[in-house]
């Protein structure tokens, strides 16, 4: 029953934005573009969704007695945790009904609607509800509600019949005049919410893919919202194409999974009697208590298991296996999709360009939710990843976080800074997941969503207040003009920088980044060869603090650099500031308690089985040692201290450089001009891609054009010329010979008729006479010929 209620609540929360989208996009009946009806419908939909999600969360917690929140402490987490929170994969209502009293059911899965069955492929809309799902639902709907509210204020300029776009120019130099698109914006936002929630709720990997694409489309629509601006439409295209590259890998992964597992579903499938017929993907990969994969004794391939953990056999009696290498390929494929979606190295370049969209879009789509979908999928699909894949994830995240952070140092566009910061933080999450810090990565996902959306909204507020001025070099001293914005922004900056007074107060970023860094430290301790995985995030923690405070100092402190901007600057209306305040509360305190706090416990409530204990190197194929909870806990305080130190250093440096006038910034820039320009040009990634892909494509294209022009065209022209010559001869033949014959005939006919027409006198009486004379002659001839 609980499962059904949960399912229904989440379905309502999921489908309401779709209904809102339909009403907003098709219900043109409110007609006037100055009406805010669309916005309020969207807010109502997503707000109701938030209430549903929250009540679902509460219901879920009540049903299992909040066992996940019972903090066991990290030291003795293993036994109790694994058993209580992790019954066998493929936990279902029916299977669990007779389960032990201390182990309440926490995972619910099933089918919402079966789309069709093609052979053995069962395509359906499934749901998979566990603690992660519920947390994500609540987070997404909460943030989305805030951002919707904010957007009502931010997008109010669109509430007009004739909107003048100052950034788009016609060929004659005039600005583009177009009708306002207020309702369209909110329709797209609703569609996006629907897609994102569907992705989170999805119960099979194929469904995830569908909503994955839907999210991409919404992103495309929202980035290209100012479609008249060439930069906006280019950015939209870039985002979409970059995602396609990642999705290509995703599709490969899907094919491998389908070929070997024959199902897409995460959870088990049960028939009408409640008997489990299909264990689902997570049930097919079985790990023993030490985290070792069950392998086929003959071939050494990874065995695919049935519901009860024994190796499955196919119809021919052969046991079903999957080669280990293909398991790696499948994992890498799925992760490729995540790279694209979460803007990881090397596909990270689309995200800064995506800042062309309206700022609420940047806040919602490109910081809090959509880009987080990649991280979420890695977390969701965690049981399928083997160690090689995890290592790849870790390194990709490591590279990304460092590269993005360095670029953020020199960026001057306020939104670009935040964009690179987002990439960098996503790198942190990937790193955390890659180094076996499953809970840490997802923990950072949640906290980052709050404080990054807060900061984006703050930047939106600044931009709105400064009349769409985004360059930090023209700001400064805005503290007095917009105090609420400045204050809430400061909360966000402190949160992301990871500053804290240990034991007294710590904002959310401190806890989550701490967890990630601790996982990395544990990992590098266990595998000394991979020390970079700890060094880089540690350094980057300092860089993060540096560029975030640089942003805040640049914007709100100091003297106004551009008096024009300063004079016209003002604080945003309440509809924009209230979401800021709400979010700032969450940004500050959502992670209270750190890894013993409720949020972390909630997230890790349904942690994959093998995570808690870790995997020893002897059990690992590649020889890696994956740290368990206890290992991480051992190094936690050490890592926390190091990270805090780095952050404080970064903060101090930033203050010295930007908060005071002690250092001549131009001098510094001149000294480090090479580095600066390298960073300014974003590590020359765009140039690299240009040289790697665009130029070869151009060269091939030119060659093809040359072949076409000088080879095929010549052949064709020759054929045409031959035809013309032949036709000329043909024409001569036709005109002289055939026509001549026909004309001769007609002339002969004409002359004969001409000579005969004399007989046609046109006189009736003469005709009669002719007849009579003819008859007489005829009879005379007859009589003469046949005499009696």
């Amino acid at each position, binding site marked *: 029953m609980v499962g059904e209620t949960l399912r229904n609540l989440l379905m309502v929360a999921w489908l309401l934005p779709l209904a809102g989208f339909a009403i907003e996009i098709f219900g043109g009946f409110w007609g006037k573009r100055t009406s805010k009806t669309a916005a309020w419908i969207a807010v109502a939909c997503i707000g109701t969704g938030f209430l549903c999600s929250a009540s679902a969360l509460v219901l879920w917690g009540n049903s299992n007695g909040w066992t996940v929140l019972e903090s066991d402490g990290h030291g003795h987490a293993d036994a109790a945790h694994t058993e209580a929170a992790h019954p066998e994969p493929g936990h279902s209502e029916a299977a669990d009904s007779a389960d032990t009293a201390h182990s309440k059911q926490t995972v619910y899965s099933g089918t919402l609607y079966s789309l069709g069955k093609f052979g053995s492929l069962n395509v359906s809309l499934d749901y998979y509800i566990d603690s992660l799902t519920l947390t994500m639902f609540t987070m997404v709907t909460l943030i989305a509600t805030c951002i919707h509210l904010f957007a009502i204020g931010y997008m109010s300029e669109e509430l007009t019949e004739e909107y003048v776009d100052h950034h788009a120019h016609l060929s004659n130099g005039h600005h583009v005049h177009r009708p306002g698109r207020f309702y369209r914006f909110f329709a797209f936002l609703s569609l996006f919410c629907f897609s994102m929630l569907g992705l989170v709720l999805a119960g099979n990997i194929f469904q995830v893919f569908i909503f994955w694409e839907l999210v991409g489309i919404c992103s495309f629509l929202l980035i290209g919202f100012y479609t008249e601006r060439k930069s906006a439409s280019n950015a939209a295209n870039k985002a979409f194409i970059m995602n396609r590259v990642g999705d290509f890998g995703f599709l490969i992964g899907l094919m491998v999974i389908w070929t070997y597992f024959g199902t897409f579903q995460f959870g088990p499938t049960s028939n009408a009697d409640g008997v489990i017929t299909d264990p689902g993907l997570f049930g097919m990969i079985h790990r023993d208590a030490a985290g070792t994969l069950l392998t086929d004794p003959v071939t050494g391939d990874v065995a695919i298991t049935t519901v009860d953990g024994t190796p499955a056999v196919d119809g021919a009696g052969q046991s079903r296996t999957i080669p280990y290498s293909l398991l790696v390929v499948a994992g890498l494929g799925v992760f490729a999709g995540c790279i694209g979606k979460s803007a990881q190295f090397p596909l990270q370049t689309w995200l800064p360009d995506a800042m062309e969209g309206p700022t609420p879009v940047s806040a919602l789509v490109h910081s809090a939710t959509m880009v987080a979908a990649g991280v979420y999928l890695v977390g969701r699909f965690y049981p399928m990843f083997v160690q090689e894949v995890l290592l790849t994830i870790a390194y990709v995240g490591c590279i990304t976080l460092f590269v993005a952070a360095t670029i953020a140092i020199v960026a001057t566009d306020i939104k670009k800074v935040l964009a690179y910061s987002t990439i960098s933080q996503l790198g942190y999450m990937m790193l955390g997941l890659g180094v076996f810090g499953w809970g840490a990565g997802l923990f950072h996902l949640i906290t980052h969503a709050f404080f990054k959306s807060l900061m984006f909204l703050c930047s939106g507020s600044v931009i709105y207040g400064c009349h769409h001025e985004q360059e930090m070099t023209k700001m400064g001293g805005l503290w007095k003009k917009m105090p609420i914005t400045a204050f809430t922004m400061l909360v966000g900056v402190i949160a992301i920088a990871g500053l804290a007074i240990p034991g007294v107060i710590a904002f959310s970023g401190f806890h989550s980044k701490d967890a990630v860094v601790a996982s990395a430290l544990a990992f590098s301790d266990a595998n000394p060869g991979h020390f970079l995985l700890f060094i880089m995030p540690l350094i980057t923690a300092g860089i993060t603090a540096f560029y975030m405070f640089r942003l805040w100092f640049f914007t709100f402190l100091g003297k106004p650099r551009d008096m024009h901007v300063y004079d016209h600057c003002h604080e945003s209306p309440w509809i924009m500031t209230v979401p800021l305040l709400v979010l700032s509360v969450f940004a500050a305190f959502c992670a209270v308690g750190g890894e013993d706090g409720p949020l972390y416990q909630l997230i890790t409530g349904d942690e994959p089985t093998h995570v808690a204990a870790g995997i020893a190197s002897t059990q690992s194929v590649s020889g890696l040692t994956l740290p368990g909870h206890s290992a991480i806990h051992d190094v936690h305080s050490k890592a926390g201290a190091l990270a805090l130190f780095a952050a404080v250093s970064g903060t101090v440096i930033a203050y010295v450089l930007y908060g005071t006038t002690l250092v001549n910034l131009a001098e510094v820039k001149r000294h480090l001009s090479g580095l600066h320009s390298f960073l300014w040009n974003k590590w020359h990634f765009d140039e690299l891609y240009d040289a790697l892909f665009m130029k070869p494509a151009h060269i091939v294209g030119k060659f093809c054009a040359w072949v076409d022009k000088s080879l095929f065209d010549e052949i064709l022209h020759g054929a045409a010329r031959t035809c013309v010559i032949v036709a000329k001869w043909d024409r001569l033949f036709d005109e002289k010979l055939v026509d001549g014959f026909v004309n001769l005939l007609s002339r002969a006919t004409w002359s004969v008729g001409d000579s005969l027409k004399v007989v046609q006198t046109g006189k009736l*009486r003469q005709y009669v*006479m002719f007849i*009579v*004379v003819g*008859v*007489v002659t005829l*009879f005379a001839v007859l*009589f003469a010929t046949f005499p*009696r």
Partner: protein
Amino acid sequence: MSGHSLLFTFFALATCLSAVAVVISQTVVRMAFWLIISLGSTAALFFLADADFVGAAQLLIYVGGTLVLLVFGVMLTASGPYLKIETSPGETIIAGMIGLLFLFIVYASISGVDWKSTPGDAVATDSPLDNRSGADGQTLRPVGLSLLGLRPDKDLSGGGDGDQPSTGYLLPFEIVSVHLLVVLIGAAYLARAKRTQQASAS
């Protein structure tokens, strides 16, 4: 000379002379007059030839119908009283000569046939229309039956020259009926077309 041949001579002469008069007359109405005499006399000849019904039909349709129609035509197309459209004398003479030649040829062919000795005993010794089936001009009933598809005057039961059953003249009768209807409509249309043209023109 029996009464019958006397009458025949009288009416034959009337017929032929009136016909010649038709040719000679210059006025159309006089032509019509002589034509009436000629056709009426022909009807009398039909009566003499025991063809009562044909004679009556000749009177009713030809004399009473067709000729009245012709006179109508004369009156409607006359642009003055006693309209005369003269033919040149040369033409008349040539036509007369050729006509005489034609008559001679026809006479030669008529008299050239030996009606008694033609194969199949073409000339009956007496009228094939014997007493029962309509002698003395009582041919109304046989003609009517023929038009309905019955042939009381023919021996077609198999004793004659063939077994083929006779169908009479039912089909031609129907065809002629439809033909008459078509002519009626067609003539009405022809006479009407001009008026509508004028109406549209004006």
